[in-house]
């Protein structure tokens, strides 16, 4: 009878998915606040005005129209690298190879820019844009495929393989930057994408290009793939319980490969998009400085967005605001922009505290039940 009563009570409350979603949102918000607080303490100890820093950071990145276009242009790549990580987690992987795959994606776009400049003038057009995206995605796919095949065939843990591949990609792209696709007029960067092959700017005289549209569309596509297709179902089943999935006839190896490859496409799009759609360079700069870290930021984005494509869209805007606002924080409050990465790190650690809110809910539920028992 007690069970029937409990069922009765739960039926009158909010639906479970909404409660679950609100809890995840709560966890993300708390983690964010903890990250900002620790960042503030470090800034205070280093002699900076933390209030001024955050005011300039968020004021400019979210509540200023020019600043907001900057935020969205920072959002575009990390939304995609967030998808890479999240699709991995959904299949039970910790694929942190977005960084290297993004480098390869960018390299693909620059290789096409080189072709368009020196060899095939025809590519200085929309054709070139599409071709650059294609080559970028193909190179990123190759990088994701290596990690996938090592995992499936040799049992190499993806954390180890993807980090090694990230470094190998870094030096390969550096090689191309220095020796092959260098800019003869400016040694600080590679050759730029020619004018007509660039992605159009959404708002003139800003950095915001069509990359943000690509990112949102791909995120929605992954949402559809994961929740409305058989492939997506199998991928998630393999991640939730590989043994049970195999028992149900799902090929977990296939699910793992698909997860790597979808992740590769996302990072390839991110890397190519950075080159094709980011003024003023439309190129790769020295030490890969305009690409470095975009893959790792994706991990933060995915974790804040609870590894859900829709959550990731919003989480990416938030982290994009942090990254974009960091510039204003440096200009107006004098705080080095590396501070933002400290905040990100603390947010992730705080997100690791497992289901604090869930435990709180459990505790409250038990207390309520106890009170009801005592009443009755």
């Amino acid at each position, binding site marked *: 009878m007690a069970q029937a009563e409990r069922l009765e009570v739960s039926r009158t409350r909010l639906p479970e998915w909404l409660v679950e979603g609100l809890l995840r949102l709560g966890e993300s918000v708390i983690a964010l606040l903890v990250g900002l607080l620790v960042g503030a303490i470090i800034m205070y100890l280093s002699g900076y005005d933390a209030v001024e820093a955050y005011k300039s950071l968020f004021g400019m990145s979210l509540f200023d129209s020019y600043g907001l276009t900057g935020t969205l242009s920072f959002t575009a790549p990390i939304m995609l690298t967030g998808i890479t990580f999240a699709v991995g987690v959904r299949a039970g992987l910790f694929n942190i190879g977005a960084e290297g795959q993004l480098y390869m994606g960018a390299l693909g776009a620059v290789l096409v820019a080189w072709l368009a400049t020196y060899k095939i003038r025809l590519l200085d057009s929309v054709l070139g844009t599409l071709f650059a995206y294609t080559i970028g995605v193909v190179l990123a796919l190759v990088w994701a495929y290596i990690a996938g095949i090592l995992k499936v065939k040799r049992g190499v*843990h993806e954390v*180890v393989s993807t980090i090694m591949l990230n*470094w*190998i990609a870094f030096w390969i792209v550096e090689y191309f930057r220095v020796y092959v696709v260098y800019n003869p007029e400016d040694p600080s960067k590679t050759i730029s994408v020619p004018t007509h092959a660039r992605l159009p700017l959404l708002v003139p005289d800003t950095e915001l290009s069509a990359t943000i549209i690509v990112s949102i569309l791909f995120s929605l596509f992954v949402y559809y793939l994961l929740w409305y297709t058989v492939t997506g179902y199998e991928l998630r089943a393999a991640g939730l319980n590989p043994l049970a999935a195999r028992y149900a006839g799902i090929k977990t190896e296939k699910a793992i490969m698909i997860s790597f490859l979808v992740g590769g496409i996302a990072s390839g799009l991110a890397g190519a998009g950075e080159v094709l759609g980011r003024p003023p360079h439309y190129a790769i700069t020295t030490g890969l400085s305009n690409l470095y870290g975009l893959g790792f930021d994706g991990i933060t984005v995915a974790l804040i967005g609870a590894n859900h494509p829709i959550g990731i869209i919003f989480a990416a805007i938030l982290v994009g605001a942090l990254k974009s606002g960091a510039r204003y924080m440096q200009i107006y409050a004098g705080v080095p922009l590396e501070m933002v*990465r400290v905040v990100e790190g603390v947010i992730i*650690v705080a997100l690791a505290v497992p289901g604090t809110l869930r435990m709180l809910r459990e505790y409250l539920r038990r207390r309520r039940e106890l009170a009801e028992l005592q009443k009755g």
Partner: protein
Amino acid sequence: MDAHTAWLFTLSTLDAMTPILLTALGEILAERAGIVNIGLEGIIMLGAMVGVMAAEAVHNPLSPLIGLLAGLGIGAAIGLLHAALTAYLKGDHIIPGVGINTLALGLVPFMLIVYWHSAGQHQVYNYARVPRIGGISPVTIFALILAPIMWYILFRTSIGLTIRSVGENPEAADTVGIHVERVQAIATIIGASLAGLAGAFMSLDWLSTLTKEIAAGRGFIALALVVFSDWNPLRALGGAALFGFFDVLREWVKIMPSVKAVVPDTLLNTIPYIVTLAAVAGVLGRVRPPRHVGQPYKRE
């Protein structure tokens, strides 16, 4: 190659293998108890930074020792945090490690600017450098001795049996009265402190500079080495020597005019990472991790 050059090459290899060996030994200990820590890269960076800070702050003959201990200490502190999240709160093992790595990636360049007023690198003062014995660092000697000691403890003593049983089968260990969480926490803290020491060795001893990319993937190479070694400290010793050798070979080959003309230095930089990948993928047949590694242990 004459005897002198060979000796120099050996010394360089010993230097290059030390941080990887220390870090891998620590991680072997933690993983034998069932806790994975992928934040090693970040701990190395923070150990390198805090080590220099402490050594320079003291400014006396004991500076190097205090610096090394400070590196050890920051590692232990992060290990404690990791243990609290994983062993006690039963959280995911990977996420806090990712967080520590991200934090270090921001904090080290931040502090280089704020504390040393330098963008990117700080040359460690001479008084803070670890003195050498016949060209060999005392930290290297410690790491070389630690490997067999850790092997002996893990495989020949009851303490080792306790640690391994926690990683293999926490339920069973729990049943016979072993404090699973406590064993995991101690192993994790010692493991992380060795990574911190590895970082302090890099900045105060081997390189005598602190840069924002000081770890350069060594934390992850150490993680690969753990797999490569089959969770065995003695095999880790051999593996670290191999990786150290290739790391030095890369630097030596780079400056050889004959090679320089043919292979660009940027591509030579990929060698240690390719070797690591190949080693983990192919050289070794099947390895068997501790059965319960990386899974939060929850009592029924």
